[in-house]
């Protein structure tokens, strides 16, 4: 059975659920969102990543209706929502500060939105119970928010925003206070909810792994602009800028001058670019490099796990000689910090397939780092 890949953003026929059209938001002279245009499609799980203060919460607040764009407009289902007050939007938000009602019990907090809809008693009871079960809060239903822990409060906030089953759910760092296990469970719970209800999620997170796990697309923001939007795989494997490559995951950045390579018939590691990065060093090969960058100052971005380490000169397209300065042991993998002859520090990540005592590379060893002709990405410097 052929499974259709969920990628409405590639389909020109598809109408977006949310559309930011040249939105700018200023607080006084400060520009929090800078001429931002973005489309988000129904049933998407859209993750916003970016450093603190880059405008993630501000984007959410504009969607929820607590801020109005200074310029531009936001469309929800094709309709300009600028004039619609928050209580008339079928959008719910989970607040970064939780904003639980301190005078109401956990049960009443979750039921709050349902009661405003005028749902009947049995429905509310059933729905709240379901939410309590989902977030494992059954035991705390009668307590007040100040009588539960930080992580439990976060789950109440999540349950409260989920209860109304809105068309669009905005989650501002929903899982930050949970332990790793509960966080992973809740992530899968969220994906389940998303699949079963068809709700569109926009989620802010500081946890890249989380964004990679749950999101259909990830947007990396900086200073009120979206730098790149792509699927988790593409944003990791094919970042469009040094900023994104550096922001997502670990990366080695090597500066140099790009030169075009000759294309040899029948050799798929020919062509592309080579990087001249220092006197007396063999150029580094990037067969997938964009030849438009030839002749320019560029940066070679290389993920640490795409490198191998060995004591002998390897038979690979690219090899770098250096000395092991530090080894970070993380259990399943080890990170080798290697200093090249010209002083550049490079990180290589190797899976620990052998027990520690059997490994032969250790501190101060002269080693060779190698990577294939297509492992690196060439980015404009």
């Amino acid at each position: 059975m052929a499974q259709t890949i969920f990628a409405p953003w590639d389909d020109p026929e598809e109408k977006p659920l949310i559309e930011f059209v040249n939105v700018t938001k200023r607080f006084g002279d400060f520009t929090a969102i800078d001429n931002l245009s973005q489309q988000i499609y129904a049933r998407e799980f859209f993750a916003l990543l970016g450093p603190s203060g880059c405008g993630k919460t501000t984007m959410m607040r504009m969607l929820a209706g607590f801020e109005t764009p200074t310029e531009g407009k936001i469309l929800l289902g094709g309709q300009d929502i600028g004039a619609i007050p928050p209580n008339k939007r079928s959008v719910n938000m989970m607040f970064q500060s939780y904003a639980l009602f301190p005078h109401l019990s956990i049960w009443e907090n979750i039921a709050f939105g349902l009661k405003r809809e005028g749902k009947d008693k049995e429905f509310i009871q059933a729905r709240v119970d379901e939410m309590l079960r989902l977030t494992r809060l059954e035991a705390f239903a009668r307590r007040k928010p100040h009588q539960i822990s930080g992580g439990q409060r976060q789950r109440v906030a999540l349950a409260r925003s989920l209860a109304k089953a809105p068309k669009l759910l905005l989650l501002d760092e929903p899982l930050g206070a949970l332990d790793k296990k509960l966080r992973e469970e809740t992530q899968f719970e969220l994906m389940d909810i998303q699949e079963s209800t068809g709700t569109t999620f926009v989620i802010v997170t500081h946890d890249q792994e989380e964004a990679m796990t749950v999101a259909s697309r990830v947007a990396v923001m900086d200073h009120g602009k979206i730098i790149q939007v792509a699927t988790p795989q593409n944003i990791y494997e094919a970042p469009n800028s040094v900023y994104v490559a550096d922001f997502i995951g670990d990366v080695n950045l090597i500066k140099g001058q790009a030169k075009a390579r000759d294309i040899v018939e029948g050799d798929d590691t020919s062509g592309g670019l080579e990087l001249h990065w220092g006197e007396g060093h063999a150029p580094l090969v990037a067969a997938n490099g964009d030849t438009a960058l030839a002749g320019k100052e560029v940066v070679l971005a290389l993920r640490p796990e795409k490198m191998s380490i060995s004591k002998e000169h390897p038979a690979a397209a690219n090899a770098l000689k250096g000395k092991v300065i530090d080894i970070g042991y993380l259990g399943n993998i080890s990170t080798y910090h290697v200093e090249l002859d010209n002083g550049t520090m490079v990180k290589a990540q190797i899976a620990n397939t052998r027990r520690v005592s059997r490994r032969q590379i250790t501190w101060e060893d002269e080693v060779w780092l190698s990577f294939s002709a297509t492992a690196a990405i060439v980015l404009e410097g």
Partner: protein
Amino acid sequence: MRRFTLISVPYIWLLALFLIPFVIVFKIALSDAAIARPPYLPLLEFSEGWAGIKAFFSELDFENFVWLTEDDLYWKAYLSSLKIALVSTLFTLLIGYPIAYGMARAPNEWRPTLLMLMILPFWTSFLIRVYAWMGILSTEGLLNQLLMGLGLITEPLMILNTNVAVYIGIVYTYLPFLVLPVYAALEKLDDSLLEAAEDLGCSRFSAFWLVTVPLSRSGILAGCFLVFIPVLGEFVIPSLLGGSGTLMIGKVLFEEFFSNRDWPVASAVAVILLLILIVPIVLFQMNQQKQQEAGK
């Protein structure tokens, strides 16, 4: 030992400034009026020894309390005081709450100034401020002059020496007592709670009723008690602004004491007033305690 000393300080304070005066007043309430100095009998005579003390106690009785139930002036005065205290507390709340709300919502840099304006009148004498109201409310007063000048009325309004003037005076005087605790409660209110309420489907108005009011409840209660309790025994405002028709127990107390020189009856009136006040005072204390616990 140190703990004991610490605890004993407030108790000695209470004993000296509350319990002992109360026992003295209660004793006078059980005595009989007399043309003497002090104007009541019996007096405790230690010179006659044990027999004197016995004679003293045998002469004490509850006559004066019985008298309070026989003359309907007293219970009418108590009821009327209760009514005036309740109504004026309600008006103070209706006027004070929006003021406190406005202050709490004002921009940060404005708040100290607004708070100052609220407290400023306290720095002038209370009596002078009540006299000022006499100047405003009298038939030739500023208010009537203004209204007549504007052509809104032709005959001056009779406000001074009526209950209306008493209400105006009480609301004016006690407003800060209500505004300050309500403001303190509202200022702590987190704006994101109102946003959350709106996000979950509340209009601005219902968010106010469902979030703002319940969260300022303890401030409202504290403010109301701080108005209600002293107003119940209020004497100066009804005697200066009220008329012959204004019946308040504080005024009755004053008249018994100074005009009739009937100290025993006046004391009995005071004892009953205190008993009535115990209820709101206890409720007030409970509210304060709950508020403190919630704040932890």
